[in-house]
C-alpha cells in the first residue's frame, strides 16, 4: 500500500530516528572487547550486515503488529563487568534448578560469571563452558558453527554477532547421551543496558541432551535483551530445549533460536514467555536431512500492557519430515499477543507431515490478538494442516465448576491453568514446571 502524501515528511523523519537508533545500538554492541582475531572478523562482518539494514517498523510485514517505537525512546548504555555484585546475586539462588545443580552456566548481563556457574561430575565428551575460556582447538572447531545458521543476517541476530565477545557453549560428542539437564541461566542486573546473551549448542551424531535456557532478571529498570541461541543437531541427534523468558515488565526482549536439523534428528522445544514489556521470539527451524522430527510447544501469558510476539519459521527441505506445533496465548488486560507461524514445504520435501495449531484465550475486553499461520507448499504428496482459534473462557464451563461448589474466580483460574497445562507439562523438569505456576 502506498504512503499517503501528507505523511511523507513525518515518515522520513521517523526513518531517520530509527536509523540513528540502530547506529547507536551497533556502536554500543561494538564496545564489547575481544582479543580473538577470528572473532573480530566475524563481528566486523556482522556489523556490515547491520549497517546494510534498517531498524524495523510496522511497515515491514515481519514487524507489522509489533511496534518497536517505545524502544526508540530508551537511552541504552554499555554493560560493565563490575556489575556482577555478589550481594545481590544471592537472590539468584531461587532460579537454580535442583536437577541441574552441577551443570549450570550463568551469564550476568551476557558476561560469564564463573563463581555462579557450577560444573561438576560431567561425563567425558561433554564440552560445556564459555567460548573464550575453551582450549584453542575447541575454538577452532566452533568457528565452523558460530553465526553460521540460516538467518544469521537478520538485523537483530547480526547485531548480537557484531558485539559477540563470549558465548555459552555446549557440545555433546558423538554417541553420548547426556542424562543431566544443562541449565543456561541468563540474568540481567543492569539498567538501562543493552544485553546480548549468546549460546551455541552442538549435538553430534547419535547424541542426546536436555537444555534449559532461562532468561531472568534481578532489576526493575529498563533494559534491552537481544539474545541468540544456535542449535546444531547431527544425524540422529536429539535435543530437548526449554526456553523460559521472565524479564521484568519494563524490559524489551528480542530472542532468536536458530536450529539446524540433520537426518533423523529430533528437536523438541518448549517456549514459555511470561515477562517483558515487549517480547519477541523468533524460532527458525531448518531441516538439512530426511526424516526429521520437530515438536514446538509455546505458551505466552500476558497482562497489563505487555506485547508478546512469537514468530516461527519451519523450512523443510527434505522428504519425510514431521512437525508438530502448538502455540497458546493467554491475554489479559490491555495486552497484545502476536503469532506468525510459517511452514515452507518446497517440492523436494515430499511426504512431509506438518501440523500447526494456534490457540488464543482472551481474558479481557481490551486484550488483542493478531495471528497469522502461514503455509507455503509446493510438494503435492504432503499432509499439512493448520488451525487458529480465538475465544474467551466458555461460560458453560465456568458454570459447571460453579455448580460443583467452586467459586467463579477459582473456576476461571482453573480453566486458564488447564488451557496452559498442555504446554507446561512438556517441560522436562519438575522444578521448572513448579516455577511456572500461573
Amino acid at each position, binding site marked *: *500500500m*502506498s504512503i499517503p*502524501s501528507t505523511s511523507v515528511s513525518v515518515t522520513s523523519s521517523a526513518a531517520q530516528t530509527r536509523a540513528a537508533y540502530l547506529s547507536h545500538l551497533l556502536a554500543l554492541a561494538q564496545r564489547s572487547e575481544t582479543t580473538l582475531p577470528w572473532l573480530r572478523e566475524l563481528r566486523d562482518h556482522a556489523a556490515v550486515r547491520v549497517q546494510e539494514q534498517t531498524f524495523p517498523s510496522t511497515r515491514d*510485514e515481519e514487524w507489522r*503488529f509489533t511496534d518497536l517505537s517505545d524502544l526508540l525512546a530508551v537511552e541504552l548504555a554499555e554493560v560493565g563487568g563490575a556489575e556482577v555484585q555478589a550481594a545481590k546475586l544471592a537472590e539468584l539462588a531461587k532460579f537454580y534448578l535442583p536437577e541441574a545443580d552441577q551443570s549450570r552456566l550463568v551469564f550476568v548481563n551476557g558476561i560469564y560469571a564463573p563463581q555462579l556457574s557450577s560444573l561438576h561430575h560431567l561425563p567425558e565428551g561433554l564440552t560445556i563452558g564459555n567460548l573464550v575460556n575453551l582450549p584453542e582447538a575447541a575454538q577452532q572447531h566452533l568457528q565452523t558453527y558460530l553465526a553460521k545458521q540460516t538467518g544469521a543476517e537478520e538485523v537483530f541476530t547480526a547485531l548480537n554477532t557484531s558485539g559477540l565477545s563470549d558465548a555459552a557453549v555446549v557440545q555433546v560428542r558423538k554417541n553420548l547421551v547426556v542424562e543431566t539437564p544443562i541449565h543456561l541461566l541468563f540474568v540481567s542486573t543492569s539498567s538501562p543496558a543493552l544485553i546480548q546473551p549468546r549460546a551455541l549448542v552442538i549435538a553430534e551424531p547419535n547424541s542426546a541432551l536436555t537444555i534449559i535456557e532461562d532468561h531472568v532478571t534481578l532489576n526493575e529498570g529498563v533494559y534491552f535483551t537481544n539474545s541468540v541461541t544456535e542449535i546444531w543437531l547431527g544425524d540422529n541427534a536429539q535435543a530437548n530445549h526449554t526456553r523460559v523468558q521472565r524479564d521484568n515488565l519494563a524490559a524489551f526482549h528480542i530472542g532468536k533460536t536458530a536450529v539446524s536439523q540433520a537426518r533423523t534428528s529430533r528437536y523438541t522445544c518448549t517456549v514459555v514467555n511470561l515477562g517483558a514489556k515487549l517480547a519477541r521470539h523468533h524460532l527458525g527451524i531448518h531441516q538439512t536431512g530426511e526424516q526429521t522430527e520437530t515438536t514446538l510447544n509455546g505458551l505466552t501469558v500476558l497482562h497489563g500492557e505487555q506485547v508478546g510476539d512469537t514468530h516461527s519459521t519451519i523450512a523443510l527441505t527434505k522428504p519425510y519430515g514431521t512437525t508438530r506445533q502448538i502455540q497458546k496465548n493467554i491475554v489479559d488486560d490491555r495486552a497484545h499477543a502476536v503469532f506468525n507461524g510459517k511452514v515452507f514445504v518446497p*517440492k523436494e520435501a*515430499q511426504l512431509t507431515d506438518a501440523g500447526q495449531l494456534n490457540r*488464543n484465550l*482472551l*481474558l*479481557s*475486553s*481490551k*486484550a*488483542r*490478538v*493478531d*495471528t*497469522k*499461520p*502461514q*503455509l*507455503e*507448499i*509446493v*510438494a*503435492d*504428496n*504432503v*499432509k*499439512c*494442516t*493448520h*488451525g*487458529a*482459534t*480465538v*475465544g*474467551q473462557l466458555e461460560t458453560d464451563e465456568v458454570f459447571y465448576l460453579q455448580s460443583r461448589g467452586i467459586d467463579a474466580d477459582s473456576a476461571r483460574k482453573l480453566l486458564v491453568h488447564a488451557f496452559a497445562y498442555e504446554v507446561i507439562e512438556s517441560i522436562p523438569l519438575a522444578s521448572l514446571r513448579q516455577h511456572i505456576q500461573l
Partner: protein
Amino acid sequence: MSTTVQSLVNQPYKYGFITQIESDTIPAGLSEDVIRLISAKKNEPAFMLEFRLKAYRQWLKMTEPNWAEVGYPPIDYQKIVYYSAPKVQEKKKSLDEVDPTLLETFEKLGISLSEQKRLSNVAVDAIFDSVSVATTFKEKLAKDGVIFCSISEALQEHPDLVQKYLGSVVPVADNYFAALNSAVFTDGSFVFIPKGVKCPMELSTYFRINNGESGQFERTLIVAEEGASVSYLEGCTAPMYDSNQLHAAVVELVALDNAEIKYSTVQNWYAGDADGKGGIYNFVTKRGLCQGVNSKISWTQVETGSAITWKYPSCVLVGDNSVGEFYSVALTNNRQQADTGTKMIHIGKNTRSTIVSKGISAGNSNNSYRGLVKVGPKAEGARNYSQCDSMLIGDNAGANTFPYIQVQNNSAKVEHEASTSKIGEDQLFYFTQRGISLEDAIAMMISGFCRDVFNQLPMEFAVEADKLLALKLEGSVG
C-alpha cells in the same frame, strides 16, 4: 503422476474467438484529457468528471502494490486503451436493433439475449469491451421498482442514486487499481432494489473483453434498501491474445437494514496458453458493506480463468447482527497465478462471518489464499469460522495460505482451519477398480472437494461450474 492421465486431452479454451466488429476506440494512453474525453463521450453529469479526476490525481501519487504472491512484468499504463465501444452508438430500444454480429458473439458464449427464447428466469446485462450492449427483462423488473441497467444509463436516469452510493464502499483512493478504475471506468451494472422488494429473478451480467489492447474497467454498484433481497451473477470470458490485458474492476455492494445480497461470480477469462503467454490480469476490488442491522452479504466465486487473479471480495459488517459469507473455489493450471481470499471486518455487535475457500493448483501454477478476519473492539459477540483447503495436483504446483486474524474483543470467537492434500493414487484406484474411468473419478473427487461452495451457487451455475472445473483440469490429474 501417471503419464497416461497427463496426456489426456487438454481442453482448449473455447471462448477464445475474436469478434470482427467495428469499434469506437480512443488512442491508447492515460491523461486528464483522456478522462475528460471518456466522461464527455458518455455525456456524464459534472459530479462524475470530478469523481474521475479526483481518483486520477490520487492514482498518480500512488505506487503499484507488490505484496501479493504473483509475478508479472511491469504494466505500461500508457499502452492501454481506456475506451473501446462497439460502433453503433444509438441506445437500443429493442434487441432487434443490436448489431447481429454482437448478438452472435453472445450466442456463441451461451448467453442468449433474446428474451423470447429464454426459459430460465435470469435477467442479463451484457458488457462488450467497455460498454453495456443490452439489458434484458428491464420492463418486467421495473414493475417491481427494481432498477437494473448499465451504470452509464443509471448516470443519465438516476444520477442522485449513483452519486449517493458510488465510492461509498470503495473510496476513490482505496488502492492503486481501484483508483485507476474510478478514474477510467466506462461501464458496468447498476442494481437498485427498493425497500421491501425481493427481486423476482436472478440478475446477471456478462462481461466480454474483445479488443486486444483494451483494458476492461467496469464498475458494479448494487444497493439493496431496507428488507430488500437480490441474487446477482457475473460471468466473464475473453478472446485469446498473446498479450496480457488488464481487467481492473470495482464492485460495491450496499445492504441496508434486513437486506440481503448474494453475489456469485463464475470467472473464466482467458488464462494464457500452457507456457503462460497471454491471458488476463484480473486485479479486482470487491467489497460489500452490511450497513444495516441484520443485513447479509454473501460472495460466491468460482475462479478458473485469468493469467493472474488478485482479488479479495470483502464484507464490512457494520450493522448489528449482520452476516458476511465467502465461498470460493479457485483453480489454477499451467502457469496461472491466483492470490485470492477475503476480508471480514467485524464492527457491529453479534456479527457473523463464514469463509470457505477451496484452492486447487495443478501444473506449474501457484494458488494463494490470503484472508483477513478483523474483530474490532466494539464487535461484541462476533463469530467467525474459516476453512481453507488446498488440493495440489502435480509436484510443481504451489499452494500458500496467509490468514490474518486480528481480534480486539474477548467475546469474539474466531476459528480458522486449513489443510493441504492431494488426490491419492489409492482413491483413484478404488474408482477405476469399480469401473469408473479415470477422468470421471477425478471429476467426481474435485466436485466433492468443492461441494460446499457449489452448493451456494444458483442451480444452473452450479452445474456449469462443475463442468468447467472438470474441463479445466483434464490432462493434468493423475
